[in-house]
């Protein structure tokens, strides 16, 4: 009987002091030995609740069993049956709210099995040992399917449809693929080589990738379905539009949306200016407004850009923060300062129009609001000024309206989200499916992947049904073969 530890096996990571000036990946991943030790903590439950907690239902129990037996190759193939982007999910999934929250160990006073870390280990092991065999359906189907957006939803849908034999084209508005994985999540958390590799895998499966195509501008959904000959379209354009605070001084120089700040750094490599042409403000004191995943990314990037002090300013308390546990812990380790219960009321500029401070007021939590979280109420007389020469507003995003605006008859809800069936992704337009943040508002990578997967199944059914209707009609009129 092996010794079972009550705690997760620690994952090696870079020293926090070193991290403050390095863009290299922070978490280093398990060794084979560490992975086996961790996998042996799994009780191999009869009824694995963890799998219910996974939006794409990865066979978690089985892959962990294989890791414990050192059958890493089989573990990788087991994961891939349900998840084609395990190296990404193993790094960015909010496991504490999903699979790991359902682990029986966690309900038994221990720490759950480190499912995310094991998934990452298996995916990295596979990449290091010869990569991924591409799984293409032997029968090629004639229908072309367009995937709008190359983020997690689009990549998953593309992969599933290519496996079923369809001719898939992914259309990306930017000059590099991956969507939020490219422009949003920083290199130290998700190395872009992993995203590149996953895109290359899809290309090897026959998926065509087209960049600089802004659907709604360069081509419309109607042009895709009519002139360009696509039989179905999947819209996975994400929640790309930044939300601002609407307080005075928000347009001062040095005030960024998190989207802009992170895009400058991640997509445009502004941290490497002037080697790369795109610049970004080099902060001395940074203030990031918000406490979700994106806020943690922004505060940790600002530290890496040289901020001596980097603050998170959040109007609620630590308990209500949206960030993943791991990213929050990393931010703390790297020296971010957390101003909980603090509401920014305006940004103060210097004589040259640069932001120099944030005026704030302290809050206390009152009754729960619509979101179910306790509403922050300003405390009179508690105003103070926080010095900051870089401000990043990370309050979330709204769906990008470009596609809905340019597509007649595509229904959206009051938040601008495309109305789509949660099971099929079907929209108000025939042949148009949607999934991910464009239908739900800002959520997670894995939820978008789940939606991409369900839509791929529904698109397959839709196209098969259409094909059978056509062939039935042909039989009736005796037009077979023409």
């Amino acid at each position, binding site marked *: 009987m092996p010794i079972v530890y009550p705690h997760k096996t620690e994952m090696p990571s870079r020293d926090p002091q070193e991290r403050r000036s390095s863009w290299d990946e922070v978490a280093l991943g398990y060794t084979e030995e560490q992975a086996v030790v961790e996998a042996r903590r799994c009780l191999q439950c009869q009824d694995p609740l963890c799998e219910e907690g996974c939006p794409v239902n990865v066979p978690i129990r089985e892959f962990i069993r294989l890791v414990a037996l050192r059958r890493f190759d089989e573990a990788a193939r087991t994961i891939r049956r349900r998840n084609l982007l395990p190296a990404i999910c193993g790094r960015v999934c909010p496991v504490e709210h999903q699979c790991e929250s359902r682990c029986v160990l966690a309900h038994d006073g221990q720490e759950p099995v480190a499912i995310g870390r094991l998934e990452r280990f298996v995916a990295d092991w596979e990449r290091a040992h010869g990569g991924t065999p591409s799984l293409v359906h032997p029968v090629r189907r004639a229908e072309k399917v367009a995937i709008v957006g190359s983020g997690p939803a689009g990549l998953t849908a593309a992969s599933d449809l290519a496996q079923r034999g369809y001719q898939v*084209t992914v*259309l990306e*508005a*930017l*000059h590099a693929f991956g969507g939020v994985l490219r*422009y949003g999540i920083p290199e130290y958390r998700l190395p872009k080589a992993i995203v590149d590799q996953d895109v290359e895998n899809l290309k090897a499966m026959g998926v*065509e990738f*087209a*960049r*600089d*195509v*802004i659907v709604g*501008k*360069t*081509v*419309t959904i109607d*042009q895709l379905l009519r002139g*360009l000959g696509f039989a179905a379209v999947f819209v996975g354009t994400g929640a*790309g*539009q*930044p939300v*601002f605070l*609407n307080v005075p001084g*928000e*347009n001062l*120089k*040095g005030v*960024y*949306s998190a*989207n*802009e700040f992170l*895009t*400058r750094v991640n*997509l*445009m*490599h502004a941290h490497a*200016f*002037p*080697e*790369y*042409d*795109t*610049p970004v403000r080099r902060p001395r004191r940074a203030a990031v407004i918000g406490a979700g995943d994106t806020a943690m990314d922004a505060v940790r990037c600002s530290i890496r850009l040289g901020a001596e002090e980097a603050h998170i300013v959040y109007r609620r308390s630590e308990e209500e923060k949206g960030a993943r546990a791991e990213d929050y812990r990393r931010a703390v380790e790297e020296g971010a300062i957390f101003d909980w219960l603090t509401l920014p009321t305006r940004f103060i500029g210097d004589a040259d*129009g640069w932001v120099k401070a944030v005026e704030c007021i302290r809050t206390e939590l009152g009754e729960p609001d619509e979101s179910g979280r306790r509403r922050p109420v300003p405390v009179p007389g508690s105003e103070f000024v926080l010095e900051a020469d870089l401000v990043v507003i990370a309050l979330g995003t709204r769906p*990008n*309206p*470009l596609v809905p605006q340019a597509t007649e008859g595509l229904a959206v809800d009051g938040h601008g989200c495309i109305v789509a069936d949660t099971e099929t992704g079907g929209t108000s337009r025939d042949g148009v499916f949607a999934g991910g943040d464009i239908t739900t508002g800002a959520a997670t990578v894995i939820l978008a992947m789940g939606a991409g997967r369900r839509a791929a199944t529904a698109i397959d059914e839709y196209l098969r049904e259409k094909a059978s209707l056509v062939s039935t009609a042909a039989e009736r009129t005796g037009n077979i073969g023409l």
Partner: protein
Amino acid sequence: MDTTATVIEKRPLTDVTTLLVVRAPLVARNAAPGQFVILRVSETGERVPISITDFDREAGTITIVVQNVGRTSALICALEVGEEILDFAGPLGAPVELPDRGHAVLIGGGFGAGAIYPLARELEARGVRVSAIVGARTAGLVILSDLLGPACDEYHVCTDDGSLGYHGLVTGRLEELLAEGAGYTSCFAVGPMPMMRAVAEATARWHLPALVSLDPLMIDGTGMCGGCRVSVGGETKFACVDGPFFPADAVDFDEVTDRKAMYAEDERVSCELAEAEVTV
């Protein structure tokens, strides 16, 4: 899907301005007056928005005019016929809303004279009377007279030094023409920020509805980054998707001008580096 963009014609307009005709069928197909494209010309390069000067949907071409003012624009101007442009994304921005009647005056300052051409062409096709007023520092910097002149009912040139046409600013000529009873019913201006501010002030005095084309700093051009936000009538708008044309009298020009200068110091560093590269 063919997303390539190839330079098929190149014409230097002045010492610092180059016209490129780019074969980019996908971009040309949906192009409309008032829109722009975003270019990237090197793997380490930035994304730069450039107004569309002309488009031909049948031929699949987009014409742009580029002023050599920085590291990236120097690289664009150095492109030769037959070369492919690394990234050429568009058409972006909302097409400008043009009138169906009346007398429109188009104002182009410097290389902005290129950007008013598609408006002139469309207005002419709609049967709207079109006058153009173009301005430059000196005669040698006046561009595209051959293109713009024939597309307009009236064509006025102004130079700061008086070397060609009216001696003075475009707004001086505009107010002179208004005073003479030109009877303009709408105005569209593209040019440097101080010129557009002056146009806003002049047209306000004459109660002439005017739209100006703003070109703040941009990255994605699809409404994702918010870097191009401008205050219009006290509301924050994104120039890349809500614009680039906005009502002149509602624009906060101080803010646009200030935000455009955000990376002035970095741009200087970048230009010096580019010059050093050329010298080496």
